[in-house]
């Protein structure tokens, strides 16, 4: 399952980041690292991007980027 598939209010744990290079580094620098718990907060009114809670702050990213992040529901 990817981060983009979590439902609002659902929690997941990051298993793997599929992206490479700058995108991966950027995600890591924003706290999106393997083992971290994420809470899906919201989907934007037009359906993209999404808002998640990670490391106790709110982060938004496009679904395309969220698809690169494998999670397991917890």
């Amino acid at each position, binding site marked *: 399952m990817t981060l983009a598939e979590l439902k609002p209010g659902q929690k997941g744990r990051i298993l793997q980041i599929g992206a490479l290079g*700058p995108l991966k*580094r950027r995600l890591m620098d924003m*706290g999106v*690292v393997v083992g971290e718990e994420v809470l899906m907060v919201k989907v934007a*009114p*037009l359906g993209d991007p999404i808002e998640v809670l990670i490391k106790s702050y709110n*982060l*938004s*990213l*496009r679904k395309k980027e969220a698809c690169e992040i494998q999670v397991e529901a917890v």
Partner: protein
Amino acid sequence: MKPGAGIQYAEDRDSKKSNETITLAVAGNPNAGKSTLINSIAGTRLQVGNWPGVTVEKKTAFFEHDGRKIKLVDLPGTYSLSPYTQEEIIARDYLVNEKPDVIVNVVDATNLERNLYLTLQLAELEIPLVLALNIYDEAEAKGYRFDLEALSSMLGVAVIPTTATKREGVKALMTAALAAADSPRQSIPKPITYGDDIERAADAVVGGLSAEIPEALEQYPPRWLALKLMESDSTVLERLGMPADSRIVADAVGHLRKAHGDDMEALLADARYAQAAGLTREVLKKPDIRKRDLTEKIDAVVLNRFFGIPIFLAAMWLMFKLTFDISKPFADWLGAMISGPFKRAAEALVSIMQAPAWIASLVSDGIIAGVGAVLVFVPVIFAMMFFITFLEGSGYMARAAFVMDRAMHAIGLHGKSFIPMLLGFGCNVPAIYATRMLENPKDKALTALLIPLTSCGARLPVYVVFIGTFFASQAATVLWSLYVMGIALAICVGMVFKRMIFRGDAPMFIMELPPYRMPTFRSLMIHTWEKGKHFLIKAGTCILAVSIIVWFLLNMPWGVENKKDSYLGQVGQVIAPALKPLGFGSWEAGSALLAGLVAKEIVVGTMGEIYVKKEEEGEKKEAPPIREELAGIVTSFGEAVKSAGMNVVSTVGIATISSDESEEKMAERMPLREELQKQFTPLSAYAFITFVLLYMPCAVVAIAMRQEFGTWKWYGIAFAYQIVLAWVVAFVIYQGGKLLGLGG
């Protein structure tokens, strides 16, 4: 690793002599309150410029504190020191190349862990550091409890709690920073330990470097350099002229790769996060129950599935109205002052000095008109900067991007691009300056290229004259069609540019949604003032020059009877044939379009001058006596304030979009209208106003683009594509219309 190498590198740091300037570099995450803190330290002593070669803002301030000379440098806000974003590269290069005396690391106390991730990277640079634990008030209100001594001893640096908005802790922070400059070796942070495997590899890299490129170890902190090389950091490799697979590194990390896989970057990031999380656990106690905070409550409404977009549009409409309605009376007042008392005074002066006629004309029609052209932009730039700064500081800007991103992304833009594009309908100039809010250079450039297609207020007088003359019965429809055409073309052009100029990876959209916070009034004012001043000085001189050039073109050779023989008329004659297929191939139309390069509303004025013989004599009024003149200035300013206030109250009535030509002005334009009716048909008139909508951005936009991007490149592209677009669209309209039998 042995501490030896690091100490060696830091050895040359001596404490500062009391008369030497101490350089403080302020670093921190975006939204940690860096700007607010700097404003409360340096206030109006800040100087704003750009980092060399890029468009990222650089703020510096020189001042004295406790009798010591201080240079304060504001580094761009960053989450990390990776080599991928402009901001991060700038911050990093500054720190390793310029070696400031002390880093002041501003940390958001309500978000300690993520902020410490940057702190730990800063710590590796072996530069004395003091930590400002900012937004301390909010953290305390949330019930967070910090063990400041533990944090300080674990990091090996001074930790000062601050509340920048109330200017609390700022004095203590400065004292700590000066103390760190005075005893640098005691203030270099303890580096984080990555575990034996990584440490051993780093040692091996340092060893390899000292054998092969020893210079590098003097230039950069050795351990940092080794870690960067292990991460295959592209900028560092490039600086050292090393290949990505250099043997020094490959040998050292071979066993790491076997144990942990290929991704050294991830390995090191994980280690830093582990350390940041560990530190946070030790020094911060959070209350067990978390209250639903204000930000969540506001977001539940503002980002709501159904209300999100209407609320956003309403907020934008309000901002647009306030920006242009507040500034308009002041712009009008400034305009009236320049063309009234100021011009009369200058003319009086010129005539006292018995200067020749052409000088008198240069002064009043060239220079003073140019000064006027600059000043009328000042109120709108101030107003716009004020609101943009508010939107950014309050945290709403990130929400605006969140709400709009889907729609804007479709044409290759970023969610935030919506705001500059919207401002463009008022005036393209502040819109170009507003692209500053976009971090990614691609997003920024594409937005700036599309802004000129939003029909600004200055084009309105042109439409109004033509629509009033040819389409009086369907005025609203025709006017509306022009705005819609601009938007539709912006969408098409955006899609084309996205594929042509901005090929490759779309910039990513990974953005923090910071908690809502109230920006301080002081901070807003300082920021607004900086921007306004910047515009006045830089853009002002350029616009003045352009306006003098146009005066020259229009009036030289001196004494021309017929405008056709002026330089402008001559150029008009040259370009007229190119405009013929569009239905307005006369030298008059050509010259008027050319003059519109300065500002599009000038098209109408120039046409008036060319088509209608002016009865100049006898129009000169006696200047009122000085005392009345001064009284007039004051009372009319009062009127402007009142009217700005009224505009804020009555935000109804779309004054900025609808025509504001008075009856009187309409009557004044009668002769011009009659003349236009002889020169244009309704079809060629429509082609003409379409052309005015689309053809090249005005000179002030050019200067704004130059200022924002540091090169003429983007203006060049905008100029070229718009000329072509305008020509093609006007051609299709005119020739297509003729084919359909709409009359030539």
